[in-house]
Each structure stands twice: as C-alpha cells, then as structure tokens.
C-alpha cells in the first residue's frame, strides 16, 4: 500500500488503486472474456491519467473536493458465508442476490416457472458466460457525462461481479427482485453493479440495497444500467445506507425506448460523502421516466446529486423530484439538467428540488438547469429551500400535538409526496421505515422557540 509501483504517477491520482491492486483484481476475476479485459485495461489507464475533480470544474460546483481522496483503500477479502449479519428489506420477493465485498454470498433463485419463460436473475460473472452478447451490448454502455469520468473508469476497471437481470418479451414479474451489496472490513473498496434488461412489453421491479456490514471506512463506487425496451415498465428503487465513514459514488444510467416507462427512486441515508449521478435518456416517442430522490442528511454528511434528463425524440416525458431533509451541519447539492434535443418536439419535462431545512447549520445548494433546443415543449422546474411551514406547525400545535411530534409528522409528510409514487405498498412501507429509523437514530432537531 505504501508506494505506487510507478513513481512517475503521483499517488494522489491513484490512491489505493495502484497497478498492483488492479493486477490482483484481474487475477481474481474468474471469467474475463477478451473484450471485457480490453475494456478494463483501457478504463484503468483512463482512471490513472484523469485528474481528480478541481475547484473550477462546473460539474463539481459546491462539492467538498478535499473529501475525495482515494488513499488507503484496499481490495477486500472474501466474506465467509454465514459471517454476514444479513437482514432482509422486508418485502415479498421474486428472487434475491446477496453480494459482500464484490462476491456473491447468498442467493434465492426466481421460481422455476419464471426461469422457464426465460427470466434470468443471476450474476454478471455467470452472464458473461451464458449471455455474453447481451452483457457486451448493455454493460456500462452509456458512460455518465456528469463529471465523474475518473470514477466511472475506476468502476469499469475494478468491477468484479454484480447482478444481471434479463426479463424477456412480455414477461411480468409478480414481485420485486432484491439485490444486496455489502461492504465489510476496514478500507474495503466495493464496486456494486446492477444490469437490468427489460425487453418489449415486460415489467419488473428491482430493489438495490447498499449496506455496510460494519461501521468501518469503506469506498463504494457503483453503477447500474437500466434498459427498458418498447413498452416495458421498469421500477428501480435503491436504498443507500453505507456506514457513516463511507465515500460513495453511485451512477445510474437509464434508457427508455418507445412507450417505455421507467421509475427510479434513490433513497440516500448513509455515507460520509456521497455522490449520485443519474442519467436518463428518452430515446423514442412515448418514452417516460420518473426520477425520484429522497435524502436525509445529518451530522456532517454531504450528499451531492447530479441528474440529467435527455429528451432525444419527440413526444417524450420525464418527471424528476428530489427531496432533501437537512439536519445538523449537513450539506446537499442538487444539480439537475433537462436537455431537449433539436427534434424532440412535444417534450414534457419537469424537474423539482425541495430542501427542508431542519437546522440552522445545514446548507442546501440547488442548480436546476435547462437546455432547450426545440420550441414546442413544456418544460418547467422549481427549486425551494425552506424550513417547516410555521402555519402548518401552528395548526398541529393548536390541536394539542407536541412540537417535536408535529415536526416529525410534517417531515414525513414532506417525504410522503415522493414515497406515495411507489405503486408497491410493502416497498413504500419498507422505505418509510428506513427513513424513520434514520430520524430516530439521528439527534432530533432542536425544538424551535416561538
């Protein structure tokens, strides 16, 4: 760990992700087709040569760059089966995969009836053998253009395993597929990946859970690729509860084809500093995406969320709503951009960012952007930052509800606008409980004196 093998390369550019670590990673990956090896090598070169984000990078405006050092992280050891204190998310599932430190540790297959109809719910390692062409076509096919080129390159270079989901034409999954990605052990670096291909007219719900198995300092750099074919309906929900010491990057890439509808909801609760980039492409008429985000930030946590909605075809629609609740000295950044390409007439796009300020020391930054190159469109955005509405609070207090309870009610009301968009009630409840748990664990917001 101490010295990089190539002294010409400043250590800070690589941190713990040295050529030795990369070599050890390649040696440890069971299945490595030539195309994938080539891509990984090129990605590692790119990672090593790209600088860390600078203060003048618009894509990193307002972010705390000093927190992005890569030093000290290691390729973690395998977690022995049974050593993981796994707790399920608490919803009925069609299948389950549990990864710890980049390796599969437990699984629950999909029902035989679904497998017979061609549903694949397995690992990327398996899929490289059984569905090589599909993986090649879709894995990391849409690089994030939102500023994290260095970190997405690192993800490609060090991606070991993840979930591969293939839903054939017309198949509808009755219950969600759940994937858990754990990091365990000091300085562990994990690279979670979830690849979802939903073919024409299919329907699926995928739940990604990002968790730390202990309170150690972790490094997480994950990505998911969502591909919704013609008329497919895809729901993707993610719950990020990394340890409070974790530096986290998560990249979403969504493609919606003709008449496809993709809903994604990202819940951000954990991590010391978390960057989330979500990139949604509406490629054909009738495509619709809904991008939802919920963040509860406390202590000195920083959540940096960057989104991009690209309307590439006429008659597409997208709807984005990111809500952040800020306690203590926490900080959030929301930077969103709606892009309407020159021919994408009849686009209907919305982008909303709401920040609930629950502390006098918290900081919320909003950068809601639009780039419109077609005239027959309806594009709006709104951003607000304010505390709990004193009138609503007063009303509840006149009904005899204590201040703290009133604030909690109103805060959950704030989240409910997003949570209620989840069609699945068990999922809605599970996510609400996660938020509640975080609020209960965090010190309560100080009572306001009136």
């Amino acid at each position, binding site marked *: 760990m101490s010295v990089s093998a190539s002294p010409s390369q400043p250590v800070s550019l690589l941190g713990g992700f040295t050529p030795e670590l990369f070599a050890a990673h390649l040696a440890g990956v069971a299945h490595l087709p030539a195309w994938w090896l080539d891509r990984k090598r090129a990605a590692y070169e790119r990672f090593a040569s790209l600088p860390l984000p600078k203060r*003048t*990078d*618009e894509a990193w*405006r*307002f972010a705390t760059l000093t927190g992005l050092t890569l030093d000290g992280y290691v390729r973690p050891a395998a977690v022995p089966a049974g050593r993981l204190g796994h707790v399920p998310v608490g919803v009925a599932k069609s299948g389950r995969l549990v990864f710890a430190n980049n390796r599969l540790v437990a699984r629950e297959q999909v029902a035989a009836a679904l497998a017979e109809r061609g549903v694949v719910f397995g690992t990327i390692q398996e899929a490289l053998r059984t569905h090589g062409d599909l993986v090649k076509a879709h894995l990391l096919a849409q690089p994030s253009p939102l500023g994290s080129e260095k970190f997405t390159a690192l993800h490609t270079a060090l991606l070991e395993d993840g979930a591969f989901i293939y839903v054939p034409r017309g198949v509808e999954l009755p219950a969600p597929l759940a994937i858990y990605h754990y990091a365990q052990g000091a300085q562990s670096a994990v690279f979670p990946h979830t690849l979802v291909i939903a073919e024409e007219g299919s329907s699926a719900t995928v739940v990604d859970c990002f968790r730390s198995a202990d309170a150690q300092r972790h490094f997480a750099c994950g990505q998911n690729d969502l591909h919704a074919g013609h008329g497919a309906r895809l729901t993707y929900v993610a719950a990020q509860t990394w340890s409070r010491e974790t530096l986290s990057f998560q990249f979403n890439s969504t493609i919606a084809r003709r008449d496809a509808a993709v809903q994604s909801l990202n819940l951000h609760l954990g991590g010391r500093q978390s960057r989330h980039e979500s990139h949604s492409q509406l490629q054909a008429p009738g495509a619709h995406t809904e991008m939802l985000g919920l963040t509860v930030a406390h202590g000195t946590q920083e959540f940096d969320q960057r989104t991009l909605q690209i309307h590439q075809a006429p008659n597409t629609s997208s709807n984005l709503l990111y809500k952040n609740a800020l306690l203590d000295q926490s900080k959030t950044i929301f930077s969103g951009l709606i892009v309407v390409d*020159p021919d994408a*007439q009849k686009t209907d796009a919305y982008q909303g960012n709401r*920040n609930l*300020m*629950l*502390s*006098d*020391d*918290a*900081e*919320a*930054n*909003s*950068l*809601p*952007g*639009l*780039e*419109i*190159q*077609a*005239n*027959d*469109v*309806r*594009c*709006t*955005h*709104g*951003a*607000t*930052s*304010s*505390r709990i509405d004193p009138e609503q609070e007063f009303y509840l207090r006149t009904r005899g509800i204590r201040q703290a309870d009133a604030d909690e009610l109103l805060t959950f009301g704030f989240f409910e606008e997003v949570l209620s968009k989840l069609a699945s009630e068990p999922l809605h409840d599970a996510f609400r409980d996660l938020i509640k748990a975080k609020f209960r664990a965090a010190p309560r917001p100080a009572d306001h004196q009136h």
Partner: protein
Amino acid sequence: MSQSPTTDTLPPTAGDAAANAVQGIDQAAGNFSYKMDYAFDAGTGLTEDTIRYISSVKKEAPWILEFRLNALKQFRAKPMPTHWATKDLENINFDKIRYYLAQGQKPKRTWDEVPDDIKKTFERLGIPEQERKFLAGVEAQFDSEAAYSNVKDLVAKQGVIFLNSSEALREHPDLFRKFFGKVIPTGDNKFSALNSAVFSGGSFIYVPKGVKVSHPLQAYFRINAENFGQFERTLIIADEGAELTYMEGCTAPKFSTSTLHSAVVELVALKGAKIQYITVQNWANNVFNLVTKRGVAHEEAEIKWIDCNIGSRLTMKYPGVVLKGRKARGEVISIALANDGQHQDTGAKMIHAADETTSNIVAKSISVGQGRSTYRGVVHIPKHLKGCKNNTECDALLINTNSRTDTYPAITVRGDANSVQHEASVSKVSEEQIFYMQQRGLTEGQAMSLSVNGFVNDLATQFPMEYSVELKRLIDLEMEGSVG
C-alpha cells in the same frame, strides 16, 4: 501612440432597407454611421503604454494610473471563464481593439452647443420631435466622452452631483475614491479587470441625504468606430434616504468586425436609499457586450435593476445586489431577446448578507430563429441569517423550431430561518392565440408580435414610457421574418 483618425465608416444604409409597411418600422434604424474625427486615439492593442496614454490624455492623478496598471496585470493573469461560459469568448481579439478614442471636446451643457453631427445621430435613431426636449436633459456618452449634459444644472439645485467619471475624478476625487472599486473589485472577473485598466466615460452620481431626484437621469451610449471597445465606468451613490432613477440606452452602428463593450457599473444605496437602474441594450450584432453590474444595499435600502437586452452578438451580464444591511431589498427585472447569431447570456445575482433581506428576480427571454438565450443566476444566503427571502421566476419563450434557451441557476441556502423559491418554464407561443388573432384579421407576423409583446408586457410596463415604446418597436422589428 496617436494614430491618424479612424476613417473607415459605413455609409448610411437607410435607403436600401425595406420599410415595413405594416409596422412602419425602418429596419435599418439601428444601422447608421457617419464619418468621425477623433482627436485622441490610443491605437489598437493593449499594453502599459496604452494605459499611460489614456491616463495622460485624461490628466489623471497618479493613483488612478497605478490603479489602471494593476488592473492590467490582473486582466492578463485571469483566464477566460470558458469553463462555464460560451467558447465564443475566445473569438475576441484583444490586439485588434481600440481601447481609447475621443474627440477631446469638453462635455456640453445645452442642446445648442451639441455638435450637429451628434444631433444627426439622434435623428437617425428615430427619436421623435417631442422627445428632443427630453433629450436636452440627457447625459449622452458619445464614444468615450460624454458629449453633453444639462439635466445636471437642474438636479444640481437639489445638491446632486452628476458628472462623467473623468470629470468626477478631477472634481470630487475623495468622494469618488471612497466608493470606487469597492462594490466590484478589479479582480472580480477578467472583464472587470479590463474595464478597470482602460475605463473612460460613464457617469458619476452622488445624491445627498434625503434628496429624491426629480428627473430620471439618462445617458445614451453608442459605439462609432470599427474595432473600438467602449469601457465606461459608472458609479452611483445614493446617500441615506435618497432616491434616484437612472436610465441608459445603447445603440450602435453595424460593423463587419467584432467590437467589445465592457462596462462596470457600481451602485451604493446607503441606509434607506432607493436606486433604480434601467438599461435598454441594443448593440449591433457584432458586439461582445460583457458587463459587470453590482450594487450594495445598506439597511432598508432598495436597489432595482431593470435590464433589457435586445442587441449584441454575445451579452454576458448578471446584475447583482449585495444585501448588506438589515431589511435591504434587491430586485432584477430582466428581458432578453435573442435572434439569429445572438446569444443573450443574462441573469442576476442576489447575495444576502444581513437578516430580513429580500430579493426578487423575474427574467423573461425570447429566442427567435437560431437565437439562444440563457438565464444564469446566483442566490446566496449564508450562515445564521434570519428571515431572508428570495423569489426567482424565469420564463422562456421559443419562437422557432430551432430556437434555443438554457437556464442555469445556482442557489445556496444555509440555515432553517430563510426561504427561497425558484421557478422556471419554457414554452412557445400558443397556436390558439395566433389562430384567434388571425381570425380577427391580423397577419401571422402581427399576431406573433402582439403575442410576444404580451409575454413581456407585465415587465415592459415597469419601464419608463419612452423605453417601453422603444422596446415594443424593437420587438416588432425582431419578430419580422420570424414566421412563415
């Protein structure tokens, strides 16, 4: 240094422009030019010698020369802001720009004293006979120097100082120096540094305590030499409880190579003062208009920028207010119209620095043809302030299928005792409205023009009468040929 007077000016082109029968508008109205003689010319390019020349011609005190030379160093050290701004900035050739030109005449006092040449200019601007009287009270900047001014005498009775900045530096050096460069430091950005190095002309206004200036003070600016940049510097101070409205309008002839206009405007509103600053900008389509405008509002003071951008190739201008005193209020009303080949990159900055400060931004833009309009804004509410509020609304109207608009606000709020809201929308002219008006006998072009004027109407009515009339004419002019 002094080169022979610039000569290559274009002949008037009014004759070959097609008059618009319906609107009665001469499309070449802004397209004028005539031969000029310059007594002072700093030549092209920017060196220390250029600056020494400007300073000596203006007979400036040593501290000003030092200030200019320091600014030149900062200008050279600063990179172009192309990491966020348009790459078009790289097309500015600083070596081909004339940084100082003047006829050397003293500022004039009465209409009779105004040279015939300049009167001719105003005639060509299409200013009606009735407004001539009004114009007599105008502080007009002709190229680098103020050409005449007589509203000065009128307001002087109220104790108001209204000079061009060169005069003010000579006559009121202490007052000038106290506020100069304090709102916008030299190194604020590359172009404020450039202005600080080569500034000339612009207005200096001081309104004493409690004085409410009876007449709006007004200045016309124009550029009349090829490759000639105009770098006026305006400083307005409203003392406690004072009130003032200032208006500037810009016109420029069309030239084949790009010119640069880079002004710095600083406003100081002391306790309880009110300043309203109105701009109608209609530079020719080859002008880079890169302007830094900022005001500081002290306790219970109010600064309002009304900013309308119609001309230029590229305008980058984000009028700002630093809300420094409790209950200070800042407002920016912005209208931008971008036609083919134009990029209006405008917006507002609101920096809250005291409790209970409020700010309001309303921006409307219209993109015609391949025009591009951009809203860029900053709202900043730092730590531990109470009761601060900001409201921002941006609406963009896209006329043609390939028109473009962007919105890039940046909002930072700290603490739980403030509230900020931002809303933006993008739309096109309602087909139903156009259809309805065509039913009533209007042509499509007239209907479009009416509709666009309706879009900005609630803001346009905040302009003084003659400006809103001018604005309406300019919109009519711009909407011609945008349909069909």
